[in-house]
Structure formats: C-alpha cells, structure tokens
C-alpha cells in the first residue's frame, strides 16, 4: 500500500458529532464539582496520630528526666537508652513498607495482567 494512500485514509477520516446533551452533561459535572463543599479534615483517621504525638511528649519528658544529671545533657546516655527502643519501631516501619510494596505490586499485576494466574 502506498504511503499517500495511508495518508489519505487517516487524514480523511470524517468527524463524529458529540451527542446533543454533551455540553449539559459536562457542565452538570463541572458545577457539581464547583459547588461541592470543601473536603473536611479527616479527624476520624487522624486522631490516632494526633493522640500518638500527644503521648510522645510526656514520654520524652519522662525519658529525659531519667537521664543522669550532669553539667549538660548527656546525649550519649540518652541515645544508649533510646536506640534499643527505636530498633523495634524501625523494624516495624520496614516491615510495613515491604508489606505495602508487595500489596501494591500484586494489585498492579492483577490490573494489567488479569489473565496471569487465571484458570484455563
């Protein structure tokens, strides 16, 4: 097939006409979006985080109060005390990261390769 013929077919395609209610439908969607109330802050989801931070402050104060009193703050002793506790948190965060990554990969594969793993 000649290149000009391909050009003629692809360039000469006639346009389709949008349906009569298209503009109305778009404007309904746009107006609904414009008049929708702003999203409220998700306090229900955020309160455990806020509570966690609130609890952290007295806990840190308690830890500092237990550190030996010297001329200045004994950071080495403080780190010695806090590192074993932090190790658990770091391990938990790593485990959560791995779990979320695996979960996202599984979902992505399921979306783009739905036939993989399907029964014949």
């Amino acid at each position: 097939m000649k290149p000009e013929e391909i050009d003629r077919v692809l360039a000469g395609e006639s346009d389709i006409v949008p349906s009569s209610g298209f503009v109305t439908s778009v404007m309904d969607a746009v107006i609904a979006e414009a008049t929708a109330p702003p999203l409220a802050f998700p306090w229900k989801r955020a309160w455990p985080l806020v509570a966690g931070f609130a609890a952290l402050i007295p806990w840190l104060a308690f830890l500092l109060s237990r550190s030996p009193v010297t001329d200045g703050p004994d950071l080495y002793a403080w780190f010695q005390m806090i590192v074993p506790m932090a190790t658990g948190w770091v391990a938990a965060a790593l485990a959560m990261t791995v779990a979320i990554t695996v979960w996202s990969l599984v979902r992505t594969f399921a979306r783009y390769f739905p036939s993989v793993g399907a029964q014949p």
Partner: protein
Amino acid sequence: MSAEEDAADVARVLAGDVSAFEAIVGRWQSPLVNLAYRYCRDRARAEDLAQEAFRRAYRSLASWRREAAFSTWLFALATNLYRSEIKRLPPLSAPLDEGVAALDRRAAEPLIDEERRDRVIRNAVLALPAKYRDALTLFYFHGMDIARSAASLGVPEGTIKARLSRGRDILRSKLPSLLRNA
C-alpha cells in the same frame, strides 16, 4: 475559534463565573470528543473521556500559562489523559501480530469494500506500539501538522518525525496481511 474568546472565558471562570466554562466546552467539544474517538474507536467512551478532560481542564485552568495558545494547553491535557486512560482500559483491538494470526484462520474474501479497508487501517494504528500510535493519531488529527502534534505530545518536532516514519513503516509492513484477511 478565537483565542481572545478563550482567554476572556478563562478569565471569567477564574474570577468565579462557572457558567463561562460552558462557552469553552461548546467551542472545544467536537475536537476533544473526536480526538478521544481516535484513541478508542467507541463513541460513548470517547464522550466519557472528553468529559473527564473538560473536568480536569476546569480544575487546572489556573495553570494555563498564556504564552501558549489555550488550544495547545487543552490538547496537551486531553492527550495525556486519553493516553493514560487507554492504558487502563481493555483495548478494543488485538495487537497487530495477534490480529494477523487470528485473521489468517478465517477464509479470506477476494475483495473488501473501501469502507472496511479504511476501518482496518484506522484500527491498525491503535494496535501500534504506544509512541507510534500517539504520533500518528495526533499528526492526522491535527491535519498533518507536525508542530501542533509535537505540542500536544510535549516532545520535539524531530521526535514526532522519527516516530511518524517508524510508525508508518510498521503499519505498511503489517497492512498487506491485515487487508488480505479482513
């Protein structure tokens, strides 16, 4: 379509007059629906895609920098959306090689009418690898204008030319068997 009208309507929308967006939709509905149609070959889906493109345009209207024409910005936004949505949705046509293999199994008719042949060619564009499909789709949609196609895709003109050339080569190599078996 007037660039001044677009600019005036955008200014009104940004000032809070949502109804001014209707004029923009009215002016650009046909190009956006037709561009979407060339990506999916399905009228209802094309209107859904175009509607989503207008919604996104409304949301990000403030990001239009007036150095470029409003149409350039709108087509780039719509093209991005269509390309990503087409990836998510199941294709209407099989990849070229699969299509040829499937068609080979059918009894070939000696002659096909022109309309059917044109349809085969247009569907074959959709089955090209995405970068060639995008280049060909936009090039012919924009009336074979390289600069506008490049602007819509956000790539240099040289890239469009190279992709057009390669895309046409692939198309030409596959078409004889597709047409023979259509």
